[in-house]
């Protein structure tokens, strides 16, 4: 068996195991319950509005799905590598003929599979609610795709930090990246003009280029308000998410490759 084939089998095995770990953990069900409660809340709230019932359900529903998916991604992702070391379960795994990179990639794909299934389940629940109020639009699955792309980036950030830092630090850093990611697009127009010298401006622009720009992956508003989506938007979002996640996973693998597992 070639090394490549063996590595692929190992990545699948690690991903399957990560999937089992997530769906057998309590945090997954707690977050899922919160997400469903949020959808219920959206429906109740829609009764209090006049005329825009469907839009409230759609808007709050998508926001709730996105928020709880990101929370699952962060709170499961931050422990994926670090807790394996902390609990010493990693010793047995990495003493096998397994490149460390395969372990990280497998953990990443495993969590992405869980998030994908979770997302589809919540989108189906939201669709049922919208069908009930005759406000269903297939575009919610388009929004789902972009939520998933955002999750790909957030999970990669969480795994990157998990391979080098403790869960608490990883959670803080990932949340910070998530918040910055939703505001970084305003750096050139809003932050840079406020700065007085060129060095500060260059630093701000440098961070604008290296930090994630999650606004590229935000389509919920466009769908809720029926704003036309520009051609190439989807491809640009997919390429951005795939490249950013790949780079982060690659960096995580590099740091993890030479790490002593004590």
């Amino acid at each position, binding site marked *: 068996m070639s090394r490549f*084939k063996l590595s692929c089998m*190992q990545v699948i095995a690690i991903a399957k195991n990560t999937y089992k770990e997530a769906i057998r953990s309590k945090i997954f069900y707690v977050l899922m319950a919160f997400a469903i409660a949020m959808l219920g809340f959206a429906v109740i709230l829609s009764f209090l509005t006049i005329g825009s019932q469907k839009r409230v359900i759609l808007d709050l529903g998508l926001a709730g799905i996105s928020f709880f998916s990101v929370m699952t991604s962060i709170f499961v992702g931050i422990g994926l590598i670090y807790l394996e070391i902390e609990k010493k*379960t990693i*010793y*047995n795994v990495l*003493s096998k*003929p397994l490149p460390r990179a395969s372990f990280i990639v497998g953990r990443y794909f495993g969590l992405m599979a869980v998030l994908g299934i979770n997302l589809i389940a919540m989108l189906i629940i939201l669709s049922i609610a919208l069908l009930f109020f005759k406000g269903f639009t297939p575009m919610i699955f388009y929004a789902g795709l972009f939520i998933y792309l955002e999750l790909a980036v957030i999970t990669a950030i969480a795994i990157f930090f998990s391979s080098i830092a403790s869960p608490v630090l990883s959670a803080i850093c990932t949340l910070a990246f998530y918040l910055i990611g939703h505001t970084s697009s305003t750096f050139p127009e809003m932050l840079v003009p406020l700065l007085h010298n060129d060095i500060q401006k260059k630093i701000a622009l440098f961070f604008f280029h290296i930090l994630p720009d999650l606004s590229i992956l935000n389509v919920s508003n466009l769908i809720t308000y029926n704003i036309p989506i520009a051609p190439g938007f989807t491809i640009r979002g997919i390429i951005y998410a795939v490249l950013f996640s790949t780079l982060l996973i690659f960096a995580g693998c590099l740091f993890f490759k*030479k790490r002593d597992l*004590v």
Partner: protein
Amino acid sequence: MTKDAILVKNLKKHFKGHLSIGRIEALKGVNLEVKEGGIYGFIGPNGAGKTTTLKIITGLIFPDEGEVQIFGKPHTDYIIRKDIGFLPESPYFYDYLTGEELVKFFGSLFGIQKKELNERTKYLLDLVGLKGKEKIPLRKYSKGMLQRVGLAQALINDAKLLILDEPMSGLDPIGRREIRDLILKLKEEGKTIFFSSHILADAEMICDEVAIIVKGKIVQKGRLEELLAKDVQFYDISFKGIETPPELKDKVVVAFEGYSMIRLKDEDEVDKALATLINKGGKIMSLMPHKTSLEEIFLSSIEEKKNE
């Protein structure tokens, strides 16, 4: 000529102290040669460097200096671990998996195909005494059961080399005996077993070779019978049929109903005494060399190291 299953040359490793203050020298130039096809015991007190050495061999941590070869190839190539079955100390496993799921998971990391994996998992769980308990989640396993499932996963790839970190730890006397018997059976199948232990009686019973590590340095190593033979403390000769000759009277330990036993310090004395007894028509019943036990060698090694 027998090849080295493991060759460790001048292995050095340090760790940072608490809060990165200070420096702990865990290994100070460890050298080991583990020949193919035997049982090698790696013994030492807690904190001596056993687990650190094993972690370096299995690629979990990296040495500051030194070299490790597995079957003549550098251990840095991960693929070499296809030939290794490893049981870590106090194995920590995914407790959300069942015993069967765990063994299959580790088997899949070796690329074992499904049909073979199912058969081998069943065989190994039977072998380690977990038949009927394979569907129970590991969080409900006792320490001994975890040790057994750990052994099963270490055997899943039918490896030529087994590295076992404290394999008897957490087992009751019956369990320890079963694991000892299993290790001996694996040796008969031609496997090399390298295991660390602080249970000296177990090591003494099954090892062909041992190395004693104290404070990160190997203080004694070699074939067990040679190490023990080096330190024969005295010889007891029992005989009957004659009175004890006058020149051996001061050596008598016991004399009872025609039987006598004398105790002698070295081989020259034994040769002379045997010649005398046989010449006088005595019948030799037994000659027993009393060797130093592994425990005594181990304790004296620690004592010597303390005095350094």
